[in-house]
């Protein structure tokens, strides 16, 4: 015996399926795509043309926190888009001209002519969540590694830098907003650290001198 199903018969099934999906979504990790506005730096631009290359690990950077117990929630925090936005804004303000590269610098890679190419990496990331700190304040610490290379990929300088951010206030914050704010603060701190420390890297200073940047200008 066969029987056809009408759309009215299908309705309860659709509701059940939607409910099941909702429950499954509820069991998954909390996703946060970091969003924020990053101001341009207030400084005299260095008179060099800088290329920038973000590899996939950097431009799609994310970190995850597995729930330690059934009562806790898991997190997946995507910082890649915000990283690229912040670094583009910062570097455009720091240098006379910023040129995004079409590929990783190398002898066979056709790229626009620039004085040097900056390649940022996030080497390490640590975080503290309220389960560790007992207040709704999230903390994020990152260690960056920067490579400054020629258009052919020859190394010019390589150095590390740290950044730190925490939720500025626990007042009326949702968990997602608190995580987002901590990440935005860490990114702002990274920008501030880079902008004020760039010319203090000895190899960078030599590179700037080779491009006729006077020492006074070399201190943004």
């Amino acid at each position: 015996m066969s029987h056809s199903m009408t759309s009215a018969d299908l309705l309860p099934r659709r509701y059940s399926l939607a409910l099941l999906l909702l429950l499954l979504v509820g069991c998954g990790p909390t996703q946060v795509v970091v969003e924020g506005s990053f101001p341009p730096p207030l400084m005299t631009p260095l008179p060099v043309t800088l290329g920038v290359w973000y590899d996939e690990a950097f431009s799609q950077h994310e970190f995850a926190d597995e729930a330690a117990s059934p009562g806790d929630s898991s997190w997946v925090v995507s910082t890649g888009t915000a990283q690229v936005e912040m670094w583009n804004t910062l570097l455009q303000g720091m240098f006379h001209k910023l040129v995004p590269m079409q590929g990783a610098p190398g002898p066979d890679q056709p790229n626009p002519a620039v004085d040097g190419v900056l390649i940022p990496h996030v080497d390490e990331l640590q975080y503290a969540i309220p389960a560790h700190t007992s207040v709704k304040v999230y903390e994020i610490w990152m260690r960056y590694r920067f490579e400054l290379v020629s258009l052919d990929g020859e190394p010019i300088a390589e150095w590390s830098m740290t950044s730190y951010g925490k939720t500025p206030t626990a007042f009326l914050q949702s968990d997602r907003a608190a995580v987002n704010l901590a990440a935005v603060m860490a990114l702002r701190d990274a920008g501030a650290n880079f902008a004020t420390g760039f010319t203090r890297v000895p190899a960078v200073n030599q590179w700037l001198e080779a491009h006729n940047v006077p020492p006074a200008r070399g201190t943004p």
Partner: protein
Amino acid sequence: MSRLIALLLPVLATALSGCVTSTVDEMVFNEPVEGIGDASVVILGRRHASDYDTEPEFIRCLGDHITARDSSITVVDELDFVNALYPWFEPRTAPLRPEELKRLMRRAPVAERLREMNTEYMIWIDGTTLRTDSGGSMACGIGPGGGGCFGFGTWSNDSDYEATIWDFTDRAEVGRVNTTATGQSYMPALIVPIPIIAPVQGTACDGLGDQLLEFLSAEY
């Protein structure tokens, strides 16, 4: 009836507020005789300590307190100021002493931006409000006949803030105001919990705001 409610509301609000004790110490070296005139003032929170941050909502409260009582005073929003001068007023880079302002003002874009903003005074707020101790216990239950809570909870909050006033023209410290406030809050529960909250941070804000108003305003 509405008149009765209007009469009873302040009484009820007073009855449901915990007690707060507050002290204010002021040390002013060079107060402007006729207020700050057309110039603007910026109030900034210190966020460089590892164990606490001055709350952004406390900074907003102080700004609101001053402008509500003297509308001729322009208080620049903290985030607007920090964004306009990025990266020089981030927790990592903000000047800790007035002498550091001189070094900052040697940067032409920074000096120009501050001139545009016409900022005459910068007020740094350093401090926080902490819950110092808590006690009591409360149990809540729900059954077929209804639900309710029974018990008693109490906690105390301490506020300690110091405002340091810097003069942009002289690039010197011209005043220092300190306020402390402490208060005990209660939460008795007999079926329904009734919070009797001591407005500790609000009292500290009022105390400090009044002193700053005396400094900045020609009318006080």
